[in-house]
């Protein structure tokens, strides 16, 4: 496949196995296109992971992993335990440095050259499995705490929230559908509601890419359904990567599914395609 | 002349008992010159009874019976009736009413003569210690005779310490000799001495007076003295350093003892016990009470006090754990406050039982005194024993924790409580026993403290901040941290003291600790596995 064909493929929105040429680098990253400037997703791809390899004491957690997330996409990552899903998220957020490979956020931000707080500021938000909302604060206060903006003691002491920030809180409350619980203590919420609140806190930062780790573990069926709706509604304006085990949930939200196995991509496609893929069946033993 | 004569005269036969008695009788004479004469005769005779008689005379225990002017020695100068001893035979000679006797008096000059005479006897004694004392005495009253006596002794003296003493003493005298060679030789001899007198003498030779003049006319002698002085100074500071180190170790071992119990309760249970100081105080009071109960066996009382204090403080500790601490599991700050309340109560209880004043605790005989390594460095026994005791306690605890079942269970509970319970370990009991163990050790520390400091209701307060410092510095993951932490803090404290005084030294240590915490917030040996705070 020559370069033109590769580029044509990419522009049509299908990013498959062939490796495109590396995205153009610009001059001074931090001043022109620094983390605070956000990613440049003008080419339709928001996240490039190429040949990422991570080994821990000889064990390869990620093995030449190559993955592309399109802007506005809702992608599900599935795979058996130990496939490397969490490690992949660690690499993206800067918690773990890969031994080889490249990771780019948009066209211009080299994730491997930024540290964790910088990556967070650049627009990548991660929601961990366990909800860690502030139990003693109300829903409103939780969102208020998570609001983007000046977080110094001076600002929080003397400057009230701007109208824009207040609007944003209202918007997020709508999105996560906790408007009726706005004055409730977060600790009193149900498990599902806490997860939504946490997603809401993540949204307050205005991230372009959300990494969501097993969001529906421990939820009731109703909560699971609502979570699916929530995540789907987020796609488009945000890019969402969801790691999950619950296949029904994945089916209900996913357009595109990536199967990881032993540190690299085993298969990619729609849920049906993936479920009928012979290799996937082997690995999952008939799941 | 006198002493030389005595020395050179061979021992006379016992047939001279009569001469002895006659000389003794002469002591009864009122005239002091005659008494001196008598003393000389007694000395010359070298009778077996000579030294005891002269010693008794110095002591004021020689009496003459008014009826027959016979001279006796009494066992005690103040008793009535007097218990008498026959000077010639040294055998008891019955008793006599005090008013039938009159004491033979002495004056300063006579006493000086007596001391010199007795010392010259002692020069020939078998015990090296007695000889050394005799040499010291003779050096105090040097004249040509005694100098000759001592010089002669050098050749005969087998013990190197005694020989050195004599040489130094004579050298000090020789510094005043007219002959320059003699003075130089004296400086040479003194070069190896650690005696402060020697050092001072050399300093006064080498350094000029305020007006710039020197007491020593000869330049060679002055430079030799200067070199000798510097050499001695170097050795003295070396030994001073050793002494500081020893003091530091002894202070450190007190801190270690105080902190071990705290490290155990904090490390295993995450509990900061503010009553820890009071548990030490209880142990110190146990030592006091044991001495009250066994007034005639002070030496044994302190050994008995150790297990008693362990049990008493341990039981109080278990009470505290069962009554207060276990309800506050997982809330370290509340535990801190509640145990502080307990400490207040304990202090007041002790004040009510014993009084608010300090109680006197005696040092047993076997712990008193000191071991002199050399003239610049001596080790007091009580501190030495405390250091050894601390090491023994430390290793004993390590054995308990590492080799016994109890220790195994304690470690299991501290590392993974739910797992330990799942395996059948009764975690609540282990908590109580651990607390009891830590408290018991505090009690034992109190017994050691009773030997080094005042015992009063506030004893705990003095050491609690230091114990915390050791725990914070050493970390609670490993008892070695406590040992190293405590010893280092003690040594550093003592090192700073000469420069800054005890109080400022303490302040510096506290500040340094705050800075150290920057690097290692959990101490030298942090707790691994379970967090130190829940």
């Amino acid at each position, binding site marked *: 496949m020559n370069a033109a064909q590769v580029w044509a493929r990419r522009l049509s929105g299908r990013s498959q196995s062939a490796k495109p040429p590396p995205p153009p680098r610009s001059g001074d990253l931090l001043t022109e296109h620094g983390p605070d400037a956000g990613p440049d997703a003008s080419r339709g791809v928001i996240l490039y992971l190429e040949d990422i390899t991570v080994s821990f004491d000889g064990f390869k957690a990620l093995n030449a992993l190559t993955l592309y997330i399109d802007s506005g996409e809702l992608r599900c990552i599935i795979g058996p335990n130990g496939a490397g899903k969490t490690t992949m998220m660690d690499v993206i957020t800067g918690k773990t440095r890969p031994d080889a490979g490249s990771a780019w956020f948009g066209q211009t931000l080299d994730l491997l050259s930024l540290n964790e707080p910088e990556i967070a500021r650049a627009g990548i938000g991660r929601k961990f499995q366990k909800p860690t909302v502030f139990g003693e604060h109300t829903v409103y206060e939780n969102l208020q*705490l998570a609001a983007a903006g000046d977080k110094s*003691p001076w600002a929080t002491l003397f400057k009230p929230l701007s109208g824009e920030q207040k609007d944003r809180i209202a918007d997020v409350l709508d999105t996560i559908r906790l408007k009726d619980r706005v004055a409730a203590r977060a600790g009193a919420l149900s498990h599902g509601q806490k997860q939504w609140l946490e997603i809401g806190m993540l949204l307050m930062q205005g991230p372009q890419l959300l990494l969501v780790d097993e969001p529906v573990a421990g939820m009731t069926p109703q909560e699971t359904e609502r979570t699916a709706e929530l995540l789907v509604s987020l796609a488009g304006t945000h890019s969402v990567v969801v790691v999950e085990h619950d296949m029904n949930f994945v089916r209900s939200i996913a357009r595109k599914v990536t199967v990881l196995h032993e540190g690299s991509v085993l298969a990619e496609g729609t849920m049906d395609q993936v479920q009928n893929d012979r290799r996937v069946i082997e690995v999952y033993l008939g799941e | 002349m006198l002493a030389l004569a005595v020395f050179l005269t061979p021992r006379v036969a016992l047939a001279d008992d009569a001469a002895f008695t006659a000389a003794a009788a002469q002591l009864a004479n009122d005239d002091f010159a005659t008494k001196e004469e008598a003393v000389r005769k007694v000395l010359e005779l070298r009778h077996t009874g000579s030294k005891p008689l002269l010693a008794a005379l110095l002591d004021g225990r020689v009496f003459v019976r008014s009826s027959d002017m016979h001279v006796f020695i009494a066992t005690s100068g103040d008793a009535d009736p007097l218990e008498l001893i026959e000077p010639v035979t040294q055998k008891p000679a019955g008793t006599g009413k005090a008013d039938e006797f009159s004491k033979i008096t002495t004056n300063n000059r006579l006493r000086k003569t007596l001391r010199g005479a007795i010392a010259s006897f002692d020069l020939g004694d078998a015990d090296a210690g007695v000889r050394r004392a005799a040499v010291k005495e003779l050096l105090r009253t040097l004249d040509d005779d005694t100098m000759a006596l001592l010089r002669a002794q050098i050749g005969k003296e087998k013990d190197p310490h005694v020989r050195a003493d004599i040489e130094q003493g004579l050298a000090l005298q020789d510094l005043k000799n007219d002959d320059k060679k003699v003075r130089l030789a004296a400086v040479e001899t003194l070069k190896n001495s650690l005696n402060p007198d020697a050092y001072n003498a050399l300093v006064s030779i080498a350094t000029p007076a305020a007006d710039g003049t020197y007491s020593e006319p000869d330049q060679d002698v002055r430079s030799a003295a200067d070199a000798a002085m510097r050499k001695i100074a170097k050795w003295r500071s070396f030994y001073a350093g050793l002494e500081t180190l020893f003091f530091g170790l002894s202070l450190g071992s007190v801190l270690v003892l105080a902190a071990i119990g705290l490290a155990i309760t904090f490390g295993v249970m995450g509990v900061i016990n503010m009553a820890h100081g009071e548990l030490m105080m209880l142990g110190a009071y146990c030592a006091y009470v044991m001495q009250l109960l066994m007034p005639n066996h002070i030496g044994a009382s302190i050994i008995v006090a150790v297990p008693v204090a362990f049990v008493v403080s341990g039981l109080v500790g278990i009470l505290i754990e069962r009554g207060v601490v276990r309800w506050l599991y997982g809330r370290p700050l509340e535990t801190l406050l*509640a145990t502080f309340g*307990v400490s207040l109560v304990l202090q007041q209880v002790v004040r009510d039982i014993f009084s608010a004043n300090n109680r006197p605790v005696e040092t047993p005989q076997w712990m008193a005194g000191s071991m002199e390594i050399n003239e610049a460095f001596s080790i007091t026994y009580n501190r030495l024993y405390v250091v050894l005791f601390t090491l023994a306690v430390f290793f004993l605890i390590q054995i308990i924790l590492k080799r016994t079942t109890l220790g195994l269970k304690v470690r299991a509970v501290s590392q993974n409580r739910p797992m330990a319970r799942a395996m059948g370990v009764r975690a609540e009991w282990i908590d109580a026993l651990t607390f009891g163990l830590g408290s018991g050790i505090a009690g034992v520390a109190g017994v050691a403290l009773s030997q080094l400091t005042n015992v009063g209701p506030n004893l705990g307060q003095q050491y609690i901040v230091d114990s915390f410092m050791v725990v914070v510095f050493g970390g609670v993951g490993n008892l070695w941290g406590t040992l190293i932490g405590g010893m280092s803090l003690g040594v550093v404290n003592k090192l700073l003291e000469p420069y800054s005084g005890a109080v400022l030294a303490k302040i510096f240590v506290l500040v340094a600790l705050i800075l150290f915490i920057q690097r290692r917030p959990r101490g030298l040996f942090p707790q691994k596995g379970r967090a130190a705070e829940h």
Partner: protein
Amino acid sequence: MATTMTDSSYLGTFEQFLPRPLRGDRGGQVMLAVLVFTVTLVAVLNLAVPASSALHLSTYAVTLIGKYLTYALLAVAVDLVWGFCGILSLGHAAFFALGGYAMGMYLMRQIGTRGVYGNSILPDFMVFLNYKELPWFWHGFDMFWFAMLMVILVPGVLAFVFGWFAFRSRVTGVYLSIITQALTYALLLAFFRNDMGFGGNNGLTDFKDLLGMPLQKDGMRVTLMVASALALALGYLACRYIVTSRAGRVVEAVRDAESRTRFIGYSVESYKLWLFVFSAVLAGIAGALYVPQVGIINPSEFSPINSIEVVIWVAVGGRGVLYGAVAGAILVNYAKTVFTGVLPEFWLYALGALFVLVTLFLPKGVVGLLRTRKVEA
């Protein structure tokens, strides 16, 4: 906890006139009302009512109340960092004492030639110790404004330096508390030394007047009491402002989940530091008002037990609730005054028992008892 949402439909018309920090704070409103009422009453009963009347309040009572009020401010300062930020400071009395010493130094300089030795520059204890001149750090304390500046700066700077080192190294929990105790202990040792130039173990005393007015006069006493009440009220309002602001939310988040707060992007160390410094300054001001009322400042104010007592006042009253700290301070000190008058040997038993019982049975303090009656959101 009060929220920042002040939807006026929830408030009565009265509350609209209150400053924002007080809205929704029923307890605080009550406390301040009681404060104003009491202080006015005491002032009137002392100054306007003749001494022969049964209603007259002695100067002793005025001073006692003034003292309680300074303690209350100290308790508020401790509650601010402990109840709201989780920093259990076992050394706050050090800041109280430092403020007290600053005021004391001013008052000493005011004595001038009226001292025993009659030296216009050197206080008595310096003459006694053969000082030839005033130590450098005493200069400026003859001016009131300078002394007041020091009341704020000395505790503040010390808190800043200490906090900078402690918080930056992420020392938390019991380790932090122990270090604060060590701090006050070190200061205790230092100030006890006679050669430090602060009066040694006798401290500073025999004050004559403040700003030209004699300390002993009734009018002065009442003025000081009123000043203490004012300081308490203003301090309370300032603390309320902080805890009802967004910063207050952050501080509470730090208390509840420090790492999570840091993860969201807040500089936890900065928040702790500034809160600690502010609290230390409040404590210093309390100390500065305390000293002219009790007439002496000595190094025993630095004792660790003093700091721990303050904590128990807050615990008894109810921590995390600012008016609870006030209530606790007054309750416990009143009990202390009563006990030490009637059964002095018992006081320590009572205090010790108080520590144990409050932590075991009243984790939310007296105020918590009252509040459980109310319906929570």
